[in-house]
Structures are given as structure tokens and as C-alpha cells.
């Protein structure tokens, strides 16, 4: 079943075409990777799907509904959650309170919210950070807190923007494993934007490649890693990494 459809989306910032007629279909339970060099338009695509930006052209359909005019909170209530590329913590809240904010979305009362928050913390494996203030944490920890508060809203579709940036190779492996586990447990559909090839390739069933706002390739991880246009787009910066992976 199709849960998300991006249909012919164009987004311009002044003269800059950040996204040009992008199409994307995502089925329930799929994990789709979105890759592309810096400035390719990946985060812009997430901003449009979650309602923070309005497209100049095209429509976004989520669970068969046109959400173009919807505000982010309503899209979230529909079952879409997102981890931001640049973390957006709540500095004056503890990790526990942060996750409870998320879990209130689908809870009827405080005790239900607390239960859901505890579960989210456990799933992400940061129960030990529970009583720490967000402002005391480092970036990798904050990324995990974002993941926990996102899944506390009990989403059906989760968008993750560069969660593996700055992790060591072992940590990347752990993160892939963790996300797979969470996805299984919650029956999620995942959209992941990532620079770290090892991460996207390890996680995604299908990958789309953006380059200066154009979708230049789409397919399985294997076919993408051999696609000459992709290799060209990445030449210089990501080439070595891709070779390493394949």
C-alpha cells in the first residue's frame, strides 16, 4: 500500500531551483534512502513533506490525502515524524520531559504518555539519559533524543535527516542495527537522508539520488552504486566512500 506520494514537486528559492519536478512513491514498511551531495535538495524535500515549506508546484499525498495546505502539527498527527538534520532540542527540558512531549500526541492521559515515553527511551537505548537536561548533552546524544521523542509520537512514517553524521564506523553499524530493530518493532516506513554511504546502503531497500534538485537515479542499493551518473555526481567527494562500500 502506498503511504506517501510526492507528485511532481518543484520548489524554488528565488532563482535557485532547489527541487525540480520530483516524484517519489513510498510503500508501507519500505525503507527508502535519499542521497545526494550537499545542497542537492534533500532537506528541502523533507521540509515540504512535513509541511514546513510549501511547494511551488506539485502535491504531497500522505495516506491518500493531499496535505499541501496542512501545517506540520497536523501532518504529525497523521502519523509522520521527523528527526532534524540540525538538532532542535528543548534546552530547558530534561530528556524525559522531551520524550513525554512527543508521547502526549497519541496518549489520552499523563500515565499513558509516561508509559509510551519510557518505551521510546528503552527502544532507542537512552534510558540512562532520562534525567539529564538537554542542554548538557552532546550532538550524537541529542540525535538519539530526537529519535526517541519522534517515535514517542507513535508515527507510521519516520523521516531521518543525517543521523549518522559524525559517528565512528562501529557506531554507524550500531545505528543501522538499532533503526532496523525499531522499524521492525513499530512497523515503520522509513525515509532516510544520509551522507554516510555505509549507513544508507546498509539500511535502504531502495535509493533515490538527488543532484541540484533533480532526481538523477532511483533503484536498489546495488544498481545505484554502479550507476555512472551517480558516480559522476559524487566524483571527488563521495567516490572513495562508495568504492569502499562496494
Amino acid at each position, binding site marked *: 500500500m502506498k503511504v506517501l506520494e510526492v507528485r511532481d514537486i518543484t520548489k524554488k528559492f528565488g532563482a535557485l531551483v532547489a527541487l525540480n519536478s520530483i516524484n517519489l512513491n513510498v510503500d508501507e514498511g519500505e525503507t527508502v534512502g535519499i542521497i545526494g551531495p550537499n545542497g542537492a535538495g534533500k532537506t528541502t524535500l523533507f521540509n515540504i513533506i512535513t509541511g514546513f515549506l510549501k511547494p511551488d508546484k506539485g502535491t504531497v499525498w500522505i495516506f491518500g490525502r493531499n496535505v499541501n495546505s496542512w501545517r506540520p*502539527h497536523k501532518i*504529525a498527527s497523521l502519523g509522520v515524524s521527523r528527526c532534524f538534520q540540525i538538532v532542535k532540542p528543548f534546552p530547558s527540558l530534561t530528556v524525559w520531559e522531551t520524550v513525554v*512531549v512527543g508521547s502526549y*500526541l497519541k496518549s489520552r492521559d499523563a500515565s499513558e504518555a509516561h508509559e509510551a515515553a519510557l518505551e521510546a527511551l528503552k527502544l532507542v537505548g537512552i534510558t540512562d539519559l532520562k534525567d539529564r537536561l538537554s542542554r548538557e548533552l552532546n550532538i550524537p546524544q541529542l540525535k538519539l533524543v530526537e529519535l526517541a521523542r519522534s517515535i514517542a509520537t507513535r508515527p507510521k512514517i519516520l523521516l531521518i535527516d543525517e543521523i549518522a553524521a559524525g559517528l565512528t564506523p562501529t557506531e554507524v553499524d550500531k545505528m543501522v542495527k538499532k533503526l532496523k530493530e525499531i522499524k521492525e518493532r513499530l512497523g515503520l516506513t522509513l525515509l532516510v537522508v544520509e551522507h554516510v554511504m555505509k549507513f544508507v546502503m546498509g539500511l535502504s531497500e531502495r535509493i533515490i539520488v538527488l543532484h541540484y534538485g533533480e532526481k538523477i537515479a532511483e533503484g536498489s542499493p546495488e544498481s545505484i552504486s554502479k550507476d555512472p551518473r551517480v558516480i559522476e555526481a559524487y566524483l571527488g567527494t563521495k567516490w572513495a566512500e562508495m568504492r569502499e562500500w562496494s
Partner: protein
Amino acid sequence: MRFWQLASFGGFLLLLPLILGLNDYYIFLTTLILLYTVIVMAWYFIGGLAGQLDLGAGAYHGLGAVVTGYLMIYYNVSGWIGLVLGGLAAMGVAFIVGFPSFRFGLKEVWYALASLGLVLILQKIFLLWTDVAGPLERYIPFREFDPLYMRARAKWFYYYITLGLLLITFYLAHRAKRGKLGLYLVSIRDEEEAAEMLGIDTRRYKLVALLTYSFITAVTGGIYASMVGFYHPILFDGWIGIQTATIAIVGGLGHFWGPPLTSVILLSIAEYLRINLGGTIPGLHQVIFGAILITAILFKPAGIGPYLESLIEKVRKR
């Protein structure tokens, strides 16, 4: 232990008019201090939790005074009903102003200036609207003691009304702080986009905070009008909002106990200075009050809230 502390504090507040020797003037001053402290506590919703630097308290205070007073004078409506209707009127105005403000993401100094502008606009409107207010005071009929009409000569009557309002406001603020509303508002204050992505209708919750604050602030205006026995557009006073925000900042933005305690302490000092110095050198008390504020901000930029709160914790544990 905790029970006895609470009981003795409650007893103190209840018996305060007696302690003041039933002196109307002192009770009047005490009630004023408590009324402004109610506003500081109501500001906790919009300023402390939602993080909007609202300076418009005078608008809602004045509105409550005019509505309550007008109904008492011209329709012989009980002040109690006037308080509620004044509160609702303030909520209406707050909605008209707040909806577009939050719709277009008005924040920080821009929001502060807009809210202060509201006070001036309402003052002008009621100066010109001579059917309701105008440049002359409107006097509320005198009653020796008429609790149903909410009017009495003795000031202790208003002291207890204000005390009740203060307790209700504390209760509501405390409940918000502990529950979903407070958590939602703080998350909006800290990082609005993240809050939105967690499914929070940020505009709606900011409005909830603004409407709660405006209602309570209007009630203080209604009590004030009945206590002094008249109303006048001068009650749309920009200074009230500035005083409220200043006290909340000095007391510790976002802190629960710091601002109201600071309010009681600072306003008591201010009144003391006014009574004792205001007569000799006019304005000297304001200079000293200003100096105290500047000193507090310079030495404790985060406010004295954290210190007051740890002090309370110590007393509690003893």
C-alpha cells in the same frame, strides 16, 4: 512538618488584615501588592511558559475595570458577574490581537511592542468613547457592605477577594506547570519547529496561554475598580505591563516561585519608599526602585528565582 508550615502561612495570610490592625490604608496597600502579584503569576502563562514578552497587562486590567465598573453603575449588575464578563471581554480582545500575532509569528521585541501598543490604543478608544468612559471618572455607587453587589467600604473585603484570586491563579499555574499544558508551552518557547513536528498546534497553545493570562488580568482590574470606587481610561496603564515583565525577569524568567516572591518583596519596598520618601523629594522613590532593579539585573542576570527557590527547598526539608 510541611503541613504545619502551610497551615501557619495560610493562617498568616488569613489573619493579615487583623495583624494590620484593620487599618484600611495598610490593607489597601497590601491588596494592591497582591493584585499586581496576581498579574505577575498570570504572566507566568504567556511569559514564563510560552516565552512571549507580553507588555499588555494594562490593556486587560483596564478592560476588566471598565466592564465591571460600567455594569455595576449603569445596569446594577453585581461585580462578581462583572468580573467574569470583563474577563471574557479581555479574552475576546486577546483573541483578536493574538490570533494574527501568532499566525504571522510575531515574537520578541515585535510582540512586546505590539502588546504595549494595545494598551495605548485601548486607552485612546475609551477616552473618546464617552458613552462608556471618557475623560471623567465614573463612580460606582457607594454601599456600606454589600457582598452580593461586590462593594464595601472596608478594604478587608477586597483583600479576601484578591487573596482568593491569588490562590486560584497559583493553583492553575501550578497545574499547568506540572502537566501537559506547561510541557507543551515550554517546548514551544524552546524550539517551536520541533514542537510542531511533535504534533503541537503551536498557535493554538500560545492562544490558550494568552487567553488565560488576559482573563485573570482583567479580573484584577474589576476588583481594583470596585475597591477604589471608580474607573477611568488611565487604568489602561502601560506601566503595569512593564512592571509585571520586569518583576518576572528579575524574579527569574520561567521560574515558578521567584517572580511572585520578588513581586511581593519589590512592591513592598516600592510602597515603603513611596510613603516615606515620596513626600520629601518627589520621584526619589522611583529612582531608588530603579537602582534596585538595575543592581539585581547586573548581579543576577538569570534572576533571583533560582536562589529563592533553593531557599524554599531548604525551608521545606527542615
